[in-house]
């Protein structure tokens, strides 16, 4: 019995239910938020340690054997993602204590946050394609509600685009699942992978692969389907933005990694070539969009899009080194991006605006905040010795080795333009003198809230430094995870057991 596979899903569900029971008690909800996310992080680490020691872990729900029941499967990539979910969940919960405020908390901010984390963890751990759809919906419904908490005009406008495009993506996903079931007659991902390998009808398989690519591409905000992201991510309270920025698009990227390494890896000349150009255009359009923006969170939103391109590039090159780079990039990006959003939250809390033109002088008034911004910002741009340097280095090295020079050139160029965007924020917010214009008076920040916000940001900055200075062990982890992704037969064997012939799986058992 290995409870740690199910616990990362059960803990957020349970803490969400508990905080609903304590609807009126603000202090209790805040306590559960921190305790629940800390528990999620701890079980995530436990799971990762187990998977590293004993290989891929599988749990059959209700003891229904593999192709029939729903299986939870934790391989290294899934376990790493759960650990990152725990880190981001804990950081955002702590930051929320200081910034979210009574109004949002009274309308169920914390229960929704737990539900979102449960959906994200479920998507990372499920081994059943329809179950993946269900977790996506759990995550989406929670994110819809979080996105419009507060009911401001911009939130409504952003939410309509976010809801519509994500529903279209869900429908595409659902249709693809239905057609896939019609072809292979199973929903277990390992079983699908095994049976697709024996199918003759290549054309239909490619059509299905494209449907999954479109569905997950919308979730991951890949070119040309990313428009919902910069239209909505800068509208909700900053803690919500940070949570979305860190986790939601990465669920789409994770699903792409899972599906295009396990199920649709038979014709990489077709599917992965399309992914490759999608990745290049995603990087380029994201970073150019960011260059045109002068609002703190909108710049960061466009950079999510461009960074997604690097992760998909790792998958699209489909060499061992490229997959290692992609996994490393995901680890680095989730932490850095959330951290940058949290820094923008502190700036907003101190000055009451996100417009770069109205900000300034922070280097003089808050030098420590400037340092805390520089660490994730330079890491995002890929400066050594921070985590982003190694992530970019591996991906670009893989691109050169695979002789995909065009896309590699784009990746290098985008790194430079990312640096430009970060320098723009640095110059406008921190370096230039504070503008003369009178801003709306912002209520003074309590020292305790300030301490909590800074501690959260500093903690995530330490994570970035840790990844950068400890690149060796993290690289080894990414390498082991890429090894599992590129050997789908190990995943299939772990789920279905060895020695089952196609078509006779579990005859006579329930």
């Amino acid at each position, binding site marked *: 019995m290995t409870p740690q596979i199910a616990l990362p899903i059960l803990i957020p569900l349970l803490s969400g239910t508990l905080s609903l029971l304590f609807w009126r008690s603000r202090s209790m909800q805040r306590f559960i938020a921190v305790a629940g996310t800390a528990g999620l992080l701890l079980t995530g680490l436990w799971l990762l340690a187990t998977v590293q020691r004993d290989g891929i872990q599988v749990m059959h729900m209700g003891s229904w054997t593999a192709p029939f029941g729903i299986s939870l499967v934790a391989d290294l990539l899934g376990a790493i993602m759960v650990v990152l979910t725990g880190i981001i969940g804990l950081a955002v919960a702590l930051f929320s204590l200081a910034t979210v405020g009574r109004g949002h908390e009274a309308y169920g901010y914390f229960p929704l946050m737990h539900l979102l984390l449960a959906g994200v963890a479920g998507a990372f751990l499920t081994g059943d394609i329809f179950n993946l759809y269900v977790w996506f919906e759990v995550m989406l419904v929670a994110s819809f509600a979080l996105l419009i908490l507060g009911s401001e*005009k911009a939130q409504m*406008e952003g939410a309509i685009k976010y*809801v519509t495009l994500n*529903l*279209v993506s*869900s429908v595409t996903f659902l*249709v693809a699942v239905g057609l896939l079931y*019609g072809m292979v007659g199973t929903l277990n991902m390992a079983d699908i992978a095994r049976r697709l390998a024996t199918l003759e009808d290549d054309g239909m398989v490619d059509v299905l692969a494209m449907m999954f690519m479109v569905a997950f591409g919308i979730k991951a905000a890949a070119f040309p389907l990313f428009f919902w992201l910069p239209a909505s991510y800068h509208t909700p309270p900053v803690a919500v933005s940070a949570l979305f920025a860190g986790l939601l698009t990465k669920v789409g990227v994770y699903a792409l990694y899972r599906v295009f390494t396990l199920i649709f890896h038979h014709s990489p000349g077709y599917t992965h070539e399309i992914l490759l150009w999608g990745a290049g255009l995603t990087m380029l359009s994201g970073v150019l969009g960011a260059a045109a923006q002068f609002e703190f969170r909108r710049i960061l939103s466009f950079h999510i899009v461009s960074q997604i391109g690097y992760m998909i590039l790792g998958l699209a090159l489909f060499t061992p080194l490229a997959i290692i780079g992609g996994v490393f990039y995901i680890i680095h990006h989730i932490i850095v991006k959330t951290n940058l959003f949290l820094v923008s939250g502190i700036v907003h809390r101190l000055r009451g605006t996100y417009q770069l033109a109205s900000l300034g002088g922070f280097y003089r008034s808050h030098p420590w905040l400037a340092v805390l911004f520089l660490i994730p910002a330079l890491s995002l741009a890929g400066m050594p010795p921070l985590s982003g340097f190694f992530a970019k280095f591996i991906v670009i090295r893989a691109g050169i080795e695979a002789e995909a020079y065009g896309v590699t050139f784009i990746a290098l160029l985008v790194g430079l333009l990312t640096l430009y965007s970060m320098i723009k924020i640095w110059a406008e917010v921190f370096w230039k003198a504070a503008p003369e214009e009178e801003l709306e008076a912002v209520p003074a920040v309590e020292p305790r809230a300030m301490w909590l916000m800074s501690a959260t940001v500093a903690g995530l900055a330490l994570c970035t430094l840790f990844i950068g200075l400890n690149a060796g062990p993290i690289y080894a982890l990414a390498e082991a995870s890429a090894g599992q992704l590129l050997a789908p037969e190990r995943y299939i064997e772990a789920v279905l057991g060895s020695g089952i012939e196609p078509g006779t799986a579990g005859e006579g058992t329930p």
Partner: protein
Amino acid sequence: MEPLIAVAIGILFAAAVYMMLRRSIVKLVIGLMLISNAANLLIFATAGMVRGAPPLVPEGLSAPVGPVADPLPQALVLTAIVIAFGVLSFAVVLVRRAWEIVGADDLDKMRDTDT
């Protein structure tokens, strides 16, 4: 039976896309409803259209006799209907709130967050 259902699903998808491309947010929601129903019907059709053949195993045998309907897609459709119901009720409320707050039901007037 299958070709008829396939054509019906195609018409539903076409109608849904047409509605979603219009500017009014109410029509947008109607489009979302149609498209989720089209998807449900499509999954239902993947089970195969078999009449009056429930997937029951007669006593004494270990497999059902003759072709039977696959029960799993029907279970999937039930799940998908429930999820779509929840999400669409949210969308309806969202559209109403958006209309109250923005004061328009025209998507072209909701471009503040775009550029």
